């Protein structure tokens, strides 16, 4: 793939991301004190059982939620509730968990986790991380992989449109990339991006992302 095609893919990716997420914006200021307390109670009493204290998940099977973008969290909760996100752990866990959540609770949970402070990243193999950084920041034109930073930001902190990836568990990230590849998680843009990623590259990018702090 030449540079022109790569640029086109990046532009298309950006457009699709905007289209997908534009409809779901969360304004934390719009959540009243009662809803905020109700959200905190559910987060501490239920979500924390897997996602850890204040969203700092310990088990790599479950994603870190601390500091995640509220829009992304809300979009995922909707996807779980409507059973449109189809990766294995979504079916096994989150379809059930999201089923009884109403709009105000979903907004309160998204707000709660977006307000939590992310932890410092977890260091790993420096060579692997350097390779991952290269792919993340600059992509791999030969493989048709655009730079991830184009959407997720140079520090992988995400934006109101795209999820934060910084500090996320390697195991979780790899499972998501594979789910995008085989369309278990049906997101067109990520399907295209992840298609050319081989396992060693996934490991490298994931190790880099896990190493990033706030």
């Amino acid at each position, binding site marked *: 793939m030449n540079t022109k095609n790569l640029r086109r893919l990046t532009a298309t990716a950006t457009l699709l991301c905007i289209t997908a997420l534009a409809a779901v914006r969360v304004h934390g200021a719009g959540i009243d004190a009662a809803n905020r307390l109700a959200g*905190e109670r559910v987060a501490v009493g*239920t979500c924390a059982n897997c996602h850890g204290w204040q969203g700092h998940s310990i088990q790599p099977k479950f994603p870190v939620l601390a500091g995640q973008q509220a829009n992304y969290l809300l979009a995922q909760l909707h996807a779980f509730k409507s059973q449109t996100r189809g990766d294995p752990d979504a079916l096994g866990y989150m379809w059930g968990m999201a089923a009884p959540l109403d709009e105000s609770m979903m907004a309160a949970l998204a707000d709660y986790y977006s307000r939590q402070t992310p932890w410092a990243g977890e260091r790993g193999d420096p060579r692997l991380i350097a390779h991952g950084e290269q792919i993340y920041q600059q992509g791999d034109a030969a493989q048709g992989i655009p730079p991830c930073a184009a959407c997720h930001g140079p520090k992988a902190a995400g934006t109101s449109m795209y999820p934060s990836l910084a500090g996320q568990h390697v195991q979780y990230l790899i499972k998501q990339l594979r789910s995008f590849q085989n369309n278990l998680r049906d997101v067109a843009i990520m399907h295209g991006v992840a298609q050319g990623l081989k396992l060693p590259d996934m490991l490298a990018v994931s190790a880099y992302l896990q190493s990033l702090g706030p």
Partner: protein
Amino acid sequence: MREVRWLRTTALFSSLLLTVTLAPTAYAVPSFARQTGLACEACHTVFPELNHFGRLFKANGYTLDNLKQVRDIDTRKQQLLSLSTLPPLAAMIQVSETWLNQSLPQGTGLPARSQSSTVGFPQQLSLFYAGKVAPHVGAMIQLTYENDSAAIGIDNTDLRYANLLLLPNDHGLVYGLSVNNNPTVQDLWNTTPAWGYPYAASNAGVSSLAATQIDGTLAQQVAGLSAYALWNESLYAEMGVYHSAQQGVTNPITGAAGPLDGTASNVIEGAAPYARLAYEYQWGRHDLEVGAYGAQFKLFPGGGTTAAPATLTLPTNQFDDIAEDLQYQFLGEDHIVTLAATHIHETMHLDASFASGASANPSNQLNTTRITGTYYFRRKYGATLSHFATTGSADPGLYPAGSAPGVITSADGSPDTSGWIAEVNYLPWLNTKLSLQYTHYDQFNGGTLNYDGLGRDAAANDTTYLLLWLTF
């Protein structure tokens, strides 16, 4: 006198043996999955072993409910009712075949022998109500038909109230109450007796004579009330009391369900205290628990008959049970490893039995150790190796030599029994399990060779057990 002593001993230990033999094994309950919308793997490594989330679900009183609710509120918006539109019902069936290494002598002592294999169809069939009852109240109620009794009876039952106290800095304290019918059935870890390994076992083998009281001996014959708290998903403390609540026992005068008198066996004097302390630590895919639990039971031997009347008056036999447990779980995507161990130490002060001549010693010790390692690949293929050992004071009164046909007797009065269980499992689906289990005894009722003095060796009681276990 000797005959009375024999009768009392027989009454005491036949009832113990019966309860040990009939002690239920542990199950997983699909109605929880129906209620929560979560697959089995959310709460279990492989059923019935719980993972961290499963322990939290239980501590929270089985109340997490993602079904549509029938609701009612008052004018102050207080909830009056929150009832699932579908009842949390489930069923379980175990179909098994057991091959005993050496068949049994005919009960009359004639040289004829039994068959060596037994088909259990069903070995057990259970119906569960397991799930939320009200916003903070849940229940796990099990009714079981068993082929040995050919009767339906109450099995493990745990009624709970649980709530969450939100602490500063987003920490949580789960607190609650449990009313249950089997000490440790309310526990959260698979190290304690009620939910410990083996999760399923043959009921067509030969049971050894000795078991500590907390080790299933009183299952379904007691009612317990305990209060517990779980701080920050890690530190667990519980205290409670148990009182006799015997099933199938009536007052001989009125024929009513009570009050119990001297014809009943092993009746608890007053309330028996129970305590549990455990700490769980998680890091990465690892989960480690260390804990201790114990109880003190003062039992009236009872078991009186017209020939040998008994009363529920002092003295009692006092059993002090103190146990430690340890559990390690590794939960990978493909690989799951569990190591579980418990050691139960029991001190018996047999004031009643020694006075009546039912025991040879005024006090005894009894120790049980179990160490189990399990591996599963993709929750589909599993293997378990477990070592068990019970050792204690020799007491020809408690563990009598008896006469022909032997088998469930001890030539030297020793309770020592030890051996190994090896098991392989295949789960084509998460709620269906096919198991092949082999149990080998190094020692049985105190001996390796000729343990009953009538020529039977410990290894004669080895069993091969094939099980089809469906929960749905």
